[in-house]
């Protein structure tokens, strides 16, 4: 080789090296290498592959070949380190490259490692590559090897940085969201923030968020054509333990059907939201705008996001439930007040009689009622009742009954007629609902010691004679408030002799339960009364109540306890 020839070839090589090594832009370097070599060798088709992971090589750049190949990855089991005549090889990758009309593959080396390959097609002049050509090719490729490696490393650093940025952004989102979620307890707001994060951080356009309600999953927020179409897949997804792609779910027998349905609807991943290992919700998402499929790290991130949201959602619900509970308690307080105001503050004195009464309301507020009113002359109205139901409605019905009694009892009409009218009023008030009042009332003439009474379905009051005999005051008719009066109420009369005891009570007394589920019972009542029959009315009352108390012991009182005792003196 003459020295002149060498200089001629060295000068362009030097220029080439300067250009290629002055850049860190991989695309530019590859384009320059390919252009220079194709020009020098008169080749119409060229390709550059760069090394990826392990033995994988990716098509980075093509000239004269379809762009469709760019991005394709080839696996070269034992990457050749020397020039390869592609048509002489049988490997899959060689066949693929030959099908793109490439003939020669040249390894690109940097510090003795393969960083890529240069593929070249047939020379347009039909010439073979001479030894000189090969030497020149070797030189050009060697000169660009370190530049390509540098650019590749830079690209990797750039990608790593982007991934790091993305991670930082993900953490920022979690932080941003947690701060905001903890500051508010509004369910709608939590769902909106979760939606924004799905769209903004994950970059999904189609999603649905379902929340558990009464044991079933219901759509709470969504961005899709027909959210109701998802309903059918919920039951099968409740047992999901971790976030999964729909493709992955397809491999599990139990999930094949719902996964197929989700894929059909354009969804790519399902994220369960757990509270104490129970599925409290699901996030179902479509593809991202970045079109990169969901990886394990993405799924884990989504799982964290979902679980942070579900804690806030549960808190928001508990908060709302607590408000509801507070409302109920307020209502109960009102009912208790109404009830307390209806009971007589003080009992009137009845000549020839000793009287005592007590009402012990239960926590739940039942609807017990009793009253003692002076009528005309020496007459007194005595009443006891028990309204069905609890809370404000029961208290109001009781107030109605009291008003009716106070308005109607002074009338000269018979007890039977008055009771009939009270029943009609009660029936009108309850409007056929399942509310009613068991009611007993009577008029005691203190001069004659006779009691005329009507019992409308109440536990029959007991008359305990001095002889020890017992009579029950059970004449009357139907409980009040169920049906308008058709047949008149029967009326009873009883005369109370000195020492006789009249006991009016509600079922809270006889049905007071002990830990064994056993009622206090009427028999026990009579036993106590007989035992104490020489006591005053208040002595009897206290004795009875403490017997009930002893019987029930620590069992909580479930119903109002009301007792009214009259003793003829």
């Amino acid at each position, binding site marked *: 080789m003459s020295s002149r020839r060498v200089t001629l070839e060295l000068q362009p090589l030097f220029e080439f090296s300067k250009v290629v090594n002055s850049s860190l832009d991989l695309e530019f370097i590859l384009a320059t290498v390919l252009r220079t070599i194709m020009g020098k060798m008169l080749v119409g088709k060229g390709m550059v592959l760069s090394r990826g992971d392990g033995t994988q090589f990716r098509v980075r750049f093509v000239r004269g070949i379809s762009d469709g190949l760019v991005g394709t990855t080839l696996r070269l089991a034992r990457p050749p380190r020397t020039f390869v005549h592609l048509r002489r090889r049988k490997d899959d990758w060689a066949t693929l490259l030959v099908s793109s009309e490439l003939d020669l593959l040249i390894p690109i080396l940097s510090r003795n490692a393969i960083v890529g390959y240069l593929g070249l097609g047939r020379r347009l002049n039909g010439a073979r590559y001479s030894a000189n050509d090969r030497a020149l090719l070797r030189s050009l490729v060697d000169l660009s090897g370190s530049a390509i490696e540098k650019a590749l490393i830079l690209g990797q650093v750039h990608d790593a940085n*982007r991934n790091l*940025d*993305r991670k930082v*952004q993900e953490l*920022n*989102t979690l932080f*941003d*969201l947690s*701060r*905001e*979620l903890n*500051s508010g307890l509004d369910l709608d*707001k939590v769902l*909106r*923030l979760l*939606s*924004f*994060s*799905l*769209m*903004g*951080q994950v*970059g999904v*356009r189609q999603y649905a968020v379902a929340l558990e309600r009464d044991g079933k999953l219901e759509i709470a927020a969504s*961005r899709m054509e027909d959210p109701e179409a998802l309903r059918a897949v919920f039951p099968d997804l409740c047992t999901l333990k971790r976030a999964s792609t729909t493709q992955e779910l397809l491999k599990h027998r139990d999930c094949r059907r719902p996964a197929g349905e989700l894929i059909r609807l354009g969804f790519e991943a399902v994220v369960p939201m757990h509270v104490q290992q129970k599925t409290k919700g699901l996030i179902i998402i479509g593809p*991202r*705008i*970045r*079109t990169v499929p969901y990886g394990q790290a993405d799924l884990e991130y989504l799982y964290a996001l979902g679980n942070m949201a579900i804690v806030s959602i549960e808190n928001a619900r508990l908060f709302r439930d607590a408000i509801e509970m507070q409302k109920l308690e307020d209502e109960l307080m009102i009912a208790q007040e109404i009830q307390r105001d209806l009971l007589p503050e003080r009992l009137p004195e009845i000549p020839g009689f000793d009287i005592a009464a007590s009402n012990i309301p239960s926590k739940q507020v039942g609807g017990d009622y009793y009253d003692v009113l002076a009528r005309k002359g020496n007459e007194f109205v005595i009443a006891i009742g028990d309204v069905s139901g609890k809370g404000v409605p029961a208290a109001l019905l009781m107030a109605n009954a009291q008003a009716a009694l106070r308005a109607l009892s002074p009338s000269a009409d018979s007890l039977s007629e008055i009771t009939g009218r009270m029943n009609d009023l009660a029936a009108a008030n309850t409007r056929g609902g399942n509310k009613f009042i068991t009611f007993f009332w009577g008029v005691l003439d203190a001069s004659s010691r006779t009691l005329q009474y009507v019992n409308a379905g109440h536990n029959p009051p007991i008359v305990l004679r001095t002889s020890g005999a017992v009579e029950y005051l059970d004449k009357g008719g139907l409980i009040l408030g169920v049906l308008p009066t058709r047949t008149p109420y029967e009326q009873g009369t009883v005369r109370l002799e000195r020492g006789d005891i009249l006991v009016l009570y509600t079922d809270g007394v006889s049905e007071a339960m002990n830990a064994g589920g056993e009622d206090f019972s009427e028999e026990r009542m009579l036993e106590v009364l007989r035992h104490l029959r020489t006591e005053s009315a208040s002595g009897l009352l206290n004795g009875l109540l403490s017997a009930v108390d002893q019987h029930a012991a620590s069992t909580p009182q479930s119903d109002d306890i009301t007792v009214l005792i009259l003793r003829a003196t």
Partner: protein
Amino acid sequence: MSDFKVNHREGAGIHVIELKGYLDAHTATDLESAFQRLINDQKFRIVVNCRDLTYISSAGLGVFMAYIEDVRKNQGDIKLTNMSSKVYNVFDLLGFPILYEIYKDEQEAIRKFGESSTGR
């Protein structure tokens, strides 16, 4: 804490929303209501000027996602302008440039609305 302002002005049928400060989960609702108002009023040609936007969180990006389809369905668009490189980086990380037209300055975005009768 977070300081965020949304300013709205209109010229020749194009509505410019100027964002200022810190757009995160806390302030996202402000932007949300601004978009909601425009859409309720049938104003679909929207330019968002991000010149004074110092930070955007994912919840902020989510608001853009939430409205773009509504707006485009009505032959409008949301075009973004004047982003700092920090803010652009966040949009870019999540692949938003595929979905949104992002311009250097407001005038350019407004011109683009003029170029097509559909507003896109």
